[in-house]
Every structure is written in C-alpha cells, then in structure tokens.
C-alpha cells in the first residue's frame, strides 16, 4: 500500500479547483451532491497527478461525506491513482481483440524501451506504463491512452511508440 511518506503528502486546493467543484455539484439535486464524487476526483487527479489521502479527505469535507466513502470509491475504480505515477502514464489495452493483433508485443516493447516494470516510474519521473482492460477501440488495435486528457494512440507499432515517447520527452523538457 502507501509508503509512509506518501500518507503525509499535503495537497492544497486552489480557489479555481473549488470553483470547478461548484460547477459539477450543480448538475445534481441538492441532497444528492455525493454524485459529484467521481467527476471531482477526476478533476483533483488531473491537478495533482494522483489522489493523496489529504486530497481525498478534502473532497470528503467538501461533499460532506465520510472520508472512507471517498477511499472506497477511489479504490474501486481503476482510473484513480492512489500512488504517485509518472507524468505520462501509458495505458496499453491488453484485452482479447488487441492481443489478436500484437498488444502483448507492444507492452513488452514499452517495458524494454522505458526500462521499468509495469506500474513503476522511470527515474526521470516522466513515464509509467501499465496494461489496462478493454478501452473500446478494438477496431484500431493495438491502442494506448495517456491521461489526464486521455489522448488516444491507435494502430500502434514499435515505430509509433518510439515516436510517441520521444515527442513526449521533448514536450516535457520544454
């Protein structure tokens, strides 16, 4: 689970962040504000890259629910990171249709290229990768996505993965 130093991370919420929360909460009946939890967690994760205990507690306080309700939800869904990740998380689809056309090879290639195991972060903090289940793009397989915008990269080849990683490295360094 969490490393000790990760449990004490503090994430300060900006007024802009709270403004976004307010916009989201408006979508639901007043007494059902808990419905805003999933979208708010997405917003928070886009801001900080992962969901710290502190951030989740603040969300709980904002929505007037118990912190455990936030932990329960955040740990149920696969998109929420409860640990820090690389700046770019390459999520490669590993389900049936993608595997029929070479997703497993692509994952091996990415592992070798980045030099880190699934779930680990590269030393420069830029990249993580992991296999995820079906991304509903089976006709354009193999595919991967990168948060927080969840941009899609389709019909992957080793060459296109090379290109992608070098593009992202340049983007991050500028």
């Amino acid at each position, binding site marked *: 689970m969490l490393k000790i130093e990760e449990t004490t991370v503090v994430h300060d919420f900006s007024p802009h962040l709270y403004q976004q929360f307010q916009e989201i909460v408006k979508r639901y009946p007043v007494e059902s504000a808990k419905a805003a939890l999933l979208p708010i967690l997405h917003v928070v994760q886009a801001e900080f890259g992962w969901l710290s205990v502190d951030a989740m507690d603040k969300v709980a306080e904002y929505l007037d629910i118990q912190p455990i309700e936030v932990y329960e939800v955040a740990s149920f869904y*696969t998109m929420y990171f409860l640990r820090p990740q690389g700046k770019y998380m390459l999520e490669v689809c590993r389900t049936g249709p993608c595997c029929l056309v070479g997703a497993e090879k692509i994952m091996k290639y990415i592992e070798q290229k980045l030099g880190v195991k699934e779930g680990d972060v590269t030393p420069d903090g830029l990249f993580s990768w992991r296999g995820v289940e079906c991304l509903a793009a089976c006709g354009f397989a193999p595919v991967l996505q990168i948060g927080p915008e969840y941009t899609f990269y389709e019909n992957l080849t080793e060459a296109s993965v090379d290109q992608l990683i070098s593009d992202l490295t340049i983007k991050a360094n500028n």
Partner: protein
Amino acid sequence: MGRKLLLEHINVPNINTFDVYRSKGGYAAVEKALKTLSPEDIVEEVKKSGLRGRGGAGFPTGMKWSFLAKPEGKPRYLVCNADESEPGTFKDRFLMTKIPHLLIEGMIIGSFALGAKTSYIYVRGEMMPQIRILEKAIAEARNAGFLGKNILGTGYDLELYVQPGGGAYICGEETALIESLEGKRGNPRIKPPFPAIAGLWGCPTVVNNVESIAAVVPIIRDGGEEYAKIGVGRSTGTKLISASGNLVKPGIYEIELGVPVEEFIYSDEYCGGIANGKRLKAVVAGGSSVPILPANLINKTINQEARLMTYESLSDGGFATGSMMGSGGFIAFDEDQCIVRNTWNFARFYHHESCGQCSPCREGTGWMEKVLHRLEYGHGKLSDIDLLVDVSRKIEGNTICPLGDAAAWPVASAIRHFRDEFEWHVTEPKFCLQRNYGLAHYADPLPKPEPVAV
C-alpha cells in the same frame, strides 16, 4: 448497399458541429416529437419499431419505456449508458466522437417521452475526449434552444449532463451504473426493485445504450413502422457492428439486420475477409461475453442454413451450436490464434472487472483465470478442463448481475467447441508455447445431421 440510418451522414465534414448536423436534417425529429407527438405517441412509435436494446440484452426498448413507473411528485430520469467496455465493442465511442448530436437528439426525444426533466449521459471515464465532445455539443444545442427551459417554445424543460465513470466494466450493468452515478462503488443492486420503479436516487429511471437512444431519432423521424420494415422478423432496423480482430477492414459497420454472416465477413462492403490471406478459425459474434463459435458454425447453423446477423439467427441452436447478438462486437480469429490463450485473456478480464460483491463471481472468476493460465502455459492437467466447465456452471445464473454469466459463457463455450485444443495444451506442453494448434478441423464443413430413424 444497406440502408444507413445512424451513419448516413457520418462522412460529411464537421458533422460533429450543430450547424452541419442541423443542415443535414438533424433535430427535425425533436421538432416533430415535441410539437406534434405526445409522450405516449413516442413510446408507441418506439414499440412499433421493434427496436431492441443495443447494449447487449436485446430487450425491446419500447417495452422498457412503457414499464416506467409514474408516481406523483417524483422526478423521473433517463440515463444513457455510454460505459462501453465490452471487449470487441467500440461503436458507442465511434458514434459519440463522430456524430454527438445524434445522441443528444435521441436523449431529448427519450427524455420528453419519459417525462424526464434532467437526464444524464454516463460515459466511461477513459473517454475524456468524447466527454468534451459531448459537452461542447450540449452547449451548442442549448444555444440553439434545444435544451434548457421551454424548448422550442413547447414549455418542455430539459437539462442534460455528462457524467464520467471511473474505470469499471461493471458500470455497464444498469444498476451498477446508477450506483456509480450516485457517487458510490459500482456494485450492482439486487433486483427487484428494477430501475423502472426505483432507480437513480430511488426515482423511476430508464437506462438505455447509446445506440438504442440514437436509433430513436430515425424511428421518430420516419415512423416506427418504417423502421420495422428493415430487418428480419423480430430483429428490426439497423445495427452497428464493431468488427475487430484479424480482418482486412476492421471498423464500425451499420448493417441492416439480416445480412448473412458470411457476407459480412468476406464482402468488400464490410470486413473484406480475413487479414493476410489467412483462414478463419473462430468468431465471437457479440462481444467477449457471448459464446465463441468455430468457423464451421458461424457461417452456417447446425441445420446447414446460412447464419444471418439477427438476434434469432445468431442464437440459433442455443448454446450448443449457437451464440448471441450481444452488443455487436464481432471479433474474428485467424488460424494462427490460440483459443486457450484468448480464453485465458477473457477470463483475466472478467476476473479483473468483477466487483467482488457476490461470492461465486468474486472467487470463481479468479479461479478460472488461474486454471486457464496454467493450461495456457503447459502446466495443466486433463482434469482442469472439466474443472473449468464445472466452475463456470457454478457461477452461471447464481450471481447478482449478469457479469457472472458473461464470465462463464466464454470459458464454457471455448471448451465446448475447442476441447481438442485445450487437451493438446495438456498433452503437448512443450509445443503449446512454441507454436499454435492451428486451424485443425474447425473450419471443416459439418456433417449433415443423419435423419433420425423412426
């Protein structure tokens, strides 16, 4: 060329914008519905159309709408299920990316028919780009007076919101989706009560797939009877098929229900045959949950009749020799694919996606995955094959939601039709990792059933 109802204008540049969509006759169905039809008329038209839910279960949409409880003083909700995550299915992503206004138009008509004042489109969280596309389209529609207060001066108010999911296949199950929309873990509810009685926040709710809602647009525009003219028998209208796997042209195809499967695979109008000149070994016809069929059972039914792309024909022969239409995720396997590996892959998927609420699914999916992993890597035993069949039977039908069935069927059917290949993995453990079992006899014409002596 088959008729296109949903994808007619898909190649028109900028069809994702309101103006272009409108210039192609978009939102005419909303005008017709709100100005000339009563909510009951709309439900009646949808009933007449024979439209069946496109999300997988194939339940008649009109019937579902007519079941909605209408108690005084309680709001009603229409929720669109855009949590598309069934392996092999990617039609909703396509539809929302290319022609978002079609979905919004359908949502307005559906909400009006059901008396909903607030409706939600629950989109799986991974589809952030689609969420942004939809939000932009909703803003455009609102600016044009098709959403918000007093739509088109008819006095009907509707707010439409997009809700992102968090990454869970189970949220495609309607009650899990409702739980998730309420900001909870996506644990399916125990039915009854059904959402039509007590759904979102305890209020009557209808949950429909993206494609079902989009199909309401041509149904209202042209009339339910017109829609029902397309198709065969109880499979009316057109259906989006997501074609993937080892095909020359994978992608989304709108077909008139009733196209022969063989034509769908091999004709240039559709998939254009098997990629790289290989031969077809097997097909999963309706998304990963439905039973897999070997090549010799997919093109023809056991009675030597041509198998058609309809709900009835695909399930002809029951689970013994048939499959299901499901959500229309058509996955083709060429002769180089290993059925054991694929079955393991699917089992891993269901293991990963089980919510863990009820015991047979929570424990059984993991068990099946482990046994299949062992078989795939040549450490299995012959008894494992029967064990898998037995475990799948213990899960099937005994769970809260259909995920248990969906996990059990692919395993049971793969063993039913490809048992030789599973046994080969046990008897030739050295070879099973180096090469594949190949096509074997799976495409051989089936022997004609012998007439039964009386």
